[in-house]
């Protein structure tokens, strides 16, 4: 593009792999690519993150599945999806055909199901377009009274260890964490020690809306996940705490993917300054279907405005800029 600043946006995703820029879609906010490809070329993204897929097809929950909230929304989709076999037969080959780099989000009802899903994925024909796997442990563990895996360090570690065994060593594996925990650092620690090569933060926060006309819960699923700009401070805090722990040597330093409320390049820069190497754009895509692509250009401008020529120079920079009186 003529006249635009020259900034090196490339970032390491792990296992020696490099993405051309740090911007991705967020799982569940971009379907599996075809719909957004009508608005921009999805191969321009650092990576395309697919909707979390489980072993079997799932209908998801009834409706209403969403409510608009102040600067955000509540959703209760219930991980609707086609199942991993249909995914590797239909969706992944399409993403490969358009040249997308794909971060595949997977989940299971049990730790064993996560591993089964990972195995089908790793054995699939189009697996070479996969630049990493995002393990969505922010979902209920059927074997543990429906408690979310990512709320418990042991359950988190078990899933990560089992999935790691199914994936080739050179495939980066990110654990996606929920902020709905007392101490996110202990979950991050458990996931990294179990073999996660990176962490994605944050998934949605559990919330609820009551319709004040009918005086009943607005969502069919009663509670739902809160997302959008209103949760960005929570994402910044989570990235900050985990980065601080890694810098203090509590566990190995791994690349972080920041997600939560990114709408503009400046928002992306905020997550990067807190410690994220990569950034996902979720709910903002519903407002503007071109948002993930737009954020790439805006981020480039925002980085250049700080007088640096590569985005990695700003990762976690806020930790070094604290004024201690």
């Amino acid at each position: 593009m003529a006249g635009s600043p020259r900034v090196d946006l490339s970032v390491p995703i792990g296992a020696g792999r490099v993405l051309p820029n740090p911007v991705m879609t967020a799982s569940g906010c971009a379907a599996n690519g075809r719909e957004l490809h009508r608005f921009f070329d999805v191969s321009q993204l650092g990576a395309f993150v697919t909707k979390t897929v489980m072993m079997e097809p799932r209908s998801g929950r009834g409706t209403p599945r969403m409510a608009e909230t102040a600067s955000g929304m509540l959703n209760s989709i219930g991980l609707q999806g086609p199942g991993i076999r249909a995914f590797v037969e239909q969706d992944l080959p399409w993403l490969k055909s358009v040249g997308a780099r794909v971060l595949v989000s997977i989940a299971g009802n049990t730790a064993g199901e996560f591993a089964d899903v990972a195995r089908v994925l790793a054995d699939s024909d189009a697996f070479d377009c996969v630049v990493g796997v995002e393990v969505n442990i922010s979902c209920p563990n059927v074997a543990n009274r429906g408690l979310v895996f990512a709320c418990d360090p042991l359950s988190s570690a078990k899933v990560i260890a089992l999935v790691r065994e199914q994936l080739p060593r050179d495939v980066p594996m990110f654990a996606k964490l929920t902020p709905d925990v007392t101490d996110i650092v202990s979950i991050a620690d458990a996931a990294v020690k179990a073999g996660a090569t990176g962490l994605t933060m944050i998934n949605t926060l559990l919330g609820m809306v009551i319709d004040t006309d009918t005086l009943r819960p607005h969502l069919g699923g009663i509670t739902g996940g809160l997302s959008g700009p209103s949760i960005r401070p929570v994402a910044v805090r989570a990235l900050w705490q985990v980065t601080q722990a890694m810098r203090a040597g509590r566990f190995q330093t791994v690349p972080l993917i920041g997600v939560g409320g990114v709408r503009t390049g400046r928002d992306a820069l905020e997550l990067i300054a807190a410690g994220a190497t990569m950034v996902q754009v979720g709910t903002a895509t519903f407002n503007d279907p071109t948002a993930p692509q737009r954020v790439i250009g805006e981020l480039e401008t925002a980085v250049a405005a700080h007088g640096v020529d590569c985005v990695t120079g700003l990762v976690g920079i806020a930790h070094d800029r604290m004024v201690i009186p």
Partner: protein
Amino acid sequence: MTPPTPTTSGATVSAQTSARDGVLRVDGEVIAIRRAGAYHHLTIVAPGVAELARPGQFAALAVGGPTTGNLLRRSFSIHKVSPSGTYGGTLDLVIAAKGPGTQWLTELRAHDAVDVVAPLGRAFPLPTEPVPCILVGGGYGSAPLFWLAEVLRERGCPVEMVLGAGSEDRLFGVVEARRAADGVTVTTDDGSAGHRGWVSDVLPEVFRRTGAPVAYACGPMGMLQSVTRVAAEHGAVAQVAVEEAMACGVGVCMTCVMPVRDKAGVTKMVRSCVEGPVFRGDRVRWEAFHDGVCGVPADAVGAPQAGGH
């Protein structure tokens, strides 16, 4: 990347490959807004949309301006389009002010900017033969039907319209209907215009008189269900345009689903923004809807199992 295309009105268009994919995101401009009973009728310059749109499709509008806290798009049936006006292509919508987003839209003035994604969704399928058709609109649901009537009559199909609403001010387009259709029947719940009662009260007579094999309907879900039932009783097919809460309108969020049978009779939770909004009425699992809430039928693909998720 291709730069946005400037247009005569100053509106800009961004799209990857518009012609192939059939949808545009356009920085539109309101050129007229006027009251129509309880509704507002907006004309928006949105270059390129008219050439792509067909009756039954909808537009998703961003509300509140670029820094708003109301992030989700609002969806509206396309009332009509005109490809080559003085302003370079317009789109008309009929909007009922309800919550904050529709309030904002109905308070727009001429020359205000509005961000439009259109056309979206599956249009009304047209009959291959010049058969009589019945078009049923409830409230603002009549908005897309006049354009549909025009297209049907061009193909030689006689058109009967049935318009219903709670009260006279909530009827849209009665005058236009007399021009667009060969016959018009009006109903209101309170009897303030036309027959007192519901469209389903007058429909059997219209089916008997016209022998129509197809009815097209747009309006509240309860009305669509009864149109489907009355059509079936007269051996006709109903094509209904549904309204389910939508967050994105473009197929990426999975909020707008409803249970619909496919050709093989298998029920799936399908996205009404991409596989609809027009469905064959007899494929929709109406029994799953109760007072604004829709459940997942137990026989739907991937339905929650007892003891499962």
